[in-house]
């Protein structure tokens, strides 16, 4: 009892220590004193307790590299929608900093081009999107790095056909330098090694029906598998994305 009281008395010190360690480890700029006040002081959570518990105590790293891939090739768009939804939880449109979206030529042929009204529905203002369509897939990593390093963008959301470990390390350093989140959709899957902070495997799940029309599709339901998380632990969770509130919810076991 006495020990607990002593711990409580020192909890301010413990928090300060934690912040200090986090700053040393560059785990999150949310707590890093050098970046506080640059507009990035917001911490980045998914809002689902089961998932947030698996993340490090500072949340998703704001100036880090995050990767997602579809469980199968056909889940590519799902992975990219998940990252867009994740980004929509973090950016605020008032600042007007653009989001750079890099499309590779193969990704465009396979899943179509970026359609502004749809991104509006995902919660990102289309006027803030800067769409880059690379003629060669090899140019995409270069463009991502330029975008990250300039430090003006709200985020870079890109799809890459393949990325070596060295290239991913480079992007991760660029993200830290520019204090800009980098979100990558890996069309080559999560097989190869990567320097990303978090890696997600995303697949679509059959969703519930619309509350007003039982034949119509309701909220999209995804299975999120946090494969790797620096400072956290892997976890699998089924979530629903509510486009109107911009929130993730735990999916009910199975609606029907």
């Amino acid at each position, binding site marked *: 009892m006495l020990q607990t009281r002593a711990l409580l008395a020192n909890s301010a010190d413990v928090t300060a220590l934690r912040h200090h360690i986090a700053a040393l480890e560059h785990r999150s700029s949310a707590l890093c004193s050098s970046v506080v*006040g*640059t*507009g990035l002081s917001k911490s980045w959570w998914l809002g689902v307790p089961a998932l947030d518990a698996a993340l490090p105590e500072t949340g998703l790293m704001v100036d880090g590299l995050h990767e997602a891939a579809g469980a199968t090739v*056909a*889940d590519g*768009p*799902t992975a*990219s*929608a*998940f990252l*867009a939804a994740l980004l929509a939880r973090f950016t605020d449109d008032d600042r007007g*900093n*653009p989001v750079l979206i890099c499309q590779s030529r193969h990704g*465009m042929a396979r*899943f*179509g*081009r*970026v*359609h*502004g*009204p*749809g*991104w*509006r*529905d*995902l*919660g990102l*203002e*289309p*006027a803030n*999107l*800067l*769409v*880059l*369509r690379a*003629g060669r897939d090899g*140019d995409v990593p*270069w463009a991502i790095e*330029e*975008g990250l390093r*300039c*430090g*003006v*963008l709200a985020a870079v959301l890109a799809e890459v056909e393949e990325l070596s470990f060295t290239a991913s390390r480079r992007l991760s350093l660029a993200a830290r330098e520019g*204090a800009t989140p980098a979100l990558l959709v890996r069309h080559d899957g999560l097989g190869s090694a990567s320097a990303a902070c978090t890696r997600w495997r995303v697949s*679509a*799940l*059959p*969703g519930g029906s*619309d509350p007003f*029309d039982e*034949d*119509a*599709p*309701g909220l*999209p339901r*995804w299975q999120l598998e946090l494969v790797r998380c620096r400072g956290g632990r892997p976890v699998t969770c089924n979530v629903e*994305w509510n*486009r*109107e509130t911009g929130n993730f919810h735990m999916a009910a076991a199975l609606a029907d």
Partner: protein
Amino acid sequence: MKRVISIWLPRWPIDRLCRERAQESAGATQSAAVGPTPFALIAAGRRGPVLWSVDCAAGAAGLHCGMRLADARALCANLATEPADPMSDRKGLERLALWCNRFAPCCAIDGDDGLLLDITGCAHLFGGEAALMNEITERFVGLGIDTRTGLADTLGGARALARFRPQDLRPEERIAGFGEVGGAIADLPVEALGIAIADAHLLRRLGIVTIGALDRLPRAALARRFPCRKQEDGVLLRLDRAMGRCAEPISPVARAPACMERLVLSEPLIDRDGVNAVLDRLMPGLVATLDRQGLGVRNLVLWCYRVDGGAVRCAVSTARATRSEDHLLRLFRETAGTVDPGFGIDCAALHAVRVEPLEPVQPLLTENGHRCGDVNLLIDRLRARLGTDAVCRLEPVDCHRPEKAERETMPGRDPAPFSWPGVSDGPQRPFRLFDRPEPVDVIAEAPESPPRLFTWRGACRSVARAAGPERIEPEWWADMCERTVRDYYSIEDSDGRRYWLYRAGRCGADRRSQPRWYVHGLYG
């Protein structure tokens, strides 16, 4: 008052052919075109082939352009001939005109065998007009091109001096001083004005041989005698233009820059790193000029003039007017690697082609130091490396057809007059849209009902849920081929993946053709 140099290339088709032959064989063997054998280029005439261009030896033998080949052979039995190639001549002349921009920023093509240089305010860079004329002649001799030059206040005057002054005069003797053009061309024949041949013949028959004599005639009589059939070669108009009484327009091959910076190299550059060094030397001067005038550049072109008579162009453009030296140099780093120095670059010029007023900007105190950098700088870099259409912004268009509901615009343009529709306006839209809707095979319970099964990209998908239809009618003013009704369904298959399908055409409207189905987009 303008100062204009006219450069006449009397044997341009043959000179061009020789230069190309020499370049092909890398100068190893002398071309057949130059030598003791008379040589001529021939073209098809109305009655058999005629001479198009003759070289010195053939000219000495009494041959001249326009003569029929049969007559020429009678005069000179050992005449060698080749067919003429006017298209290549023209292209070569355009290249040469671009190269001539090294002397003055405004250079134009004059007919089939001449160039015009507006050297107003440029001569002092070369040590005066006579020195400039000498340099031009020497350079052309070095290129193996025969030239005559003339300098006057007017285009017509310079042209007459270049083409009709005796051949043996030195270049500086073909200069008409300020306001002296009337006197300088007074004793030249009337043909020097470039009037129609019929008019020239008539004037000669009337005993009017020189331009001076023509100028002394009363204008009213001249206008009556030679009414302007065609605007361009009316006698009076030509006379007035040559005398400087009315202006003659000049249409340059390259747009004259708003400001420029030029560097002459004593030793030709032969490697690409040298180009970057040249840029480092040129840029501060240009930026200082822009700064003085309160201008920012939108379009910047580096011209590299090669010793072999070619000009290489390397351009960068910016999304917003800028005069930041570092930024512009960085943009050139991406593109300057493509400059081919060839046999060497001995002169380079940096032209600010498109400029806009640019006032110094005061950064706001309330803005955050870190995030308020200029996104346009990033856009410029991306565009310099990946091409001008690689980066775009999306802009809403007031149109219901999904593929036309947005437009790609260049970043840096003014915002669109329409705003994006709100989230809650109408059904959800897919976030990925196919450029070309992909056809699918569909099985539905009834023709008008949503599909039950569909086959897309070779895989059969069973439909778990479907919302729709959302009917999108074509605009009544659209083309007939685009005027099909579309019924859109948003569909979730049994795996939970979501598609945006549509049925093109009305059911039952035409018994022979069934409505077709397409996948138009994907939801997350």
